[in-house]
């Protein structure tokens, strides 16, 4: 079997068994590199691989190559976050998640194409993983986007509990929802990648202190999962059949199912859009053409003109629209009529999840629903982002569980993916 056809876990096993080398693994993937990547880090990846082969690292995943969505800030490689404003920028610091990957000896193959500031359906990382150009990748999930694209591309995305993986060095879109997220062709690989990056970080005050334990081999049997029993209007027959197949697997594995409905999710998309646009508008104010990024200087322009022109030239239409909407939503009057109510809806969503999780261990709904163009995700996908829940998109099923129950999400995901179509 060609090296790129292996799972990350198998690659690691072959490396440890001496059946391949890290340099071979990196080279095999570099040979497949495509336009999914905006920067290919060939020389450095091969150099790290050579160090792995020389025995410098002892992490189990050392030598298994990884790809980073270009919203993760890296030293020695440019970071543009899909924006003309940042094009060509190289940071003098690095994201904590990336630093942890490097410390474990994972060669970084490439930076992958993203929609501007990660807000949209464009994801070279998902493409690359689906097409065996990388065994796994690190992306950003803001309001379900990465999980939604995973459904479209047939890969597994597991958004951790908010704050489980440091956001330091993740180009901020929506601070209260952005989550560094592993994607892979199967659950085990996503979980392995997750474990390299997880853990509190003093550079991120919203990162959480928690004694993570991913070692459980426990079966899901005996647990209860909240499910949908009736096909929603916006779920296609095909998507519903896929979902039901996944639920059967869980029942076969001994999970009890019970119907769960979440009334507050009806307003989740609007609330996430409001909060998202508002935070986005403020987070992007730092892109002003003064300290970094691409400046545009109009003739006889004042400093304020320079800021306006640089942002005008550097941002694409959708970014501008989101900033302008967000600016409006935080303005006098609208902040009371829209923004604060959206933050209250968020509270209601969290409360409703908390209530639901008193009777179920996790909730599974169909992953494949199209919603609007701003946040293409399901209400459940958005709900998990609003509430900071760990959530997986796997084989057409969206699974979420209480905060800190990331490990349970992985175990349920591993069962769901045994349905046809989910394979490495």
């Amino acid at each position, binding site marked *: 079997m060609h090296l790129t056809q292996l799972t990350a876990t198998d690659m690691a096993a072959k490396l440890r068994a001496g059946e391949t080398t890290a340099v071979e693994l990196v080279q095999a993937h570099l040979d497949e590199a495509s336009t999914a990547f905006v920067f290919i880090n060939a020389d450095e990846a091969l150099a790290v691989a050579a160090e792995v082969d020389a025995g410098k690292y002892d992490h189990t995943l050392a030598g298994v190559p990884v790809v980073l969505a270009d919203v993760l800030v890296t030293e020695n490689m440019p970071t543009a976050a899909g924006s003309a404003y940042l094009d060509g920028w190289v940071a003098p610091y690095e994201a904590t998640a990336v630093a942890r990957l490097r410390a474990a000896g994972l060669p970084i193959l490439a930076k992958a194409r993203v929609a501007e500031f990660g807000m949209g359906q464009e994801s070279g990382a998902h493409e690359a993983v689906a097409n065996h150009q990388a065994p796994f990748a690190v992306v950003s999930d803001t309001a379900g986007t990465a999980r939604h694209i995973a459904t479209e591309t047939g890969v597994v995305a597991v958004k951790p509990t908010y704050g489980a993986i440091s956001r330091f060095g993740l180009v901020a879109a929506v601070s209260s929802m952005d989550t560094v997220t592993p994607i892979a062709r199967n659950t085990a690989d996503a979980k392995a990648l997750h474990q390299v990056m997880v853990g509190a970080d003093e550079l991120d005050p919203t990162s959480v202190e928690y004694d993570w334990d991913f070692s459980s081999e426990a079966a899901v049997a005996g647990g209860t999962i909240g499910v949908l029993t009736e096909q929603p209007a916006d779920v296609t027959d095909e998507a519903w059949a896929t979902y039901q197949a996944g639920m059967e697997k869980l029942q076969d594995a001994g999970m009890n199912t019970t119907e769960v409905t979440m009334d507050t999710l009806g307003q989740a998309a609007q609330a996430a859009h409001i909060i998202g646009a508002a935070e986005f508008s403020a987070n992007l104010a730092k892109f002003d053409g003064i300290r970094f990024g691409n400046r545009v200087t109009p003739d006889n322009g004042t*400093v304020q003109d320079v800021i*306006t022109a640089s942002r005008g030239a550097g941002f694409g239409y959708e970014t*501008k629209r989101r900033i302008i909407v967000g600016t409006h939503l935080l303005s006098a009057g609208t902040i009371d009529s829209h923004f604060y109510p959206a933050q209250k809806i968020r509270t209601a969503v969290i409360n409703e999840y908390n209530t639901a999780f008193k009777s179920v261990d996790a909730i599974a709904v169909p992953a494949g629903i199209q919603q609007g163009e701003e946040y293409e995700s399901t209400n459940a996908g958005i709900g998990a982002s609003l509430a900071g829940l760990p959530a997986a998109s796997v084989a057409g099923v969206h699974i979420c569980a209480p905060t800190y129950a990331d490990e349970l999400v992985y175990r349920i995901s591993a069962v769901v993916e045994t349905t046809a179509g989910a394979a490495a």
Partner: protein
Amino acid sequence: MVDNIAATAHIALTEDERQRLTAEFDPIIDALVVTADEQLPVTVNPLPVNNKLRADVVANELSNEQALSAAPESQDGQFMVPAILDGE
């Protein structure tokens, strides 16, 4: 409306963008109406974490060269911008 907000947000719009956004703006805002129980508190951080404080110890400083490494324009170790008049 759009022009005023774009000015506040310091974003130059092309004429095409301006027209498109003018047409899209009101429908977007109208679609974003939510009705919440007023008694509920707002949620800012999704997880209830408090008091993440750090020690008062110097770390992670950039050198002057690193600080200016991506500056579009600089002089004498400082970032340079067109003149700013007093009084804002």
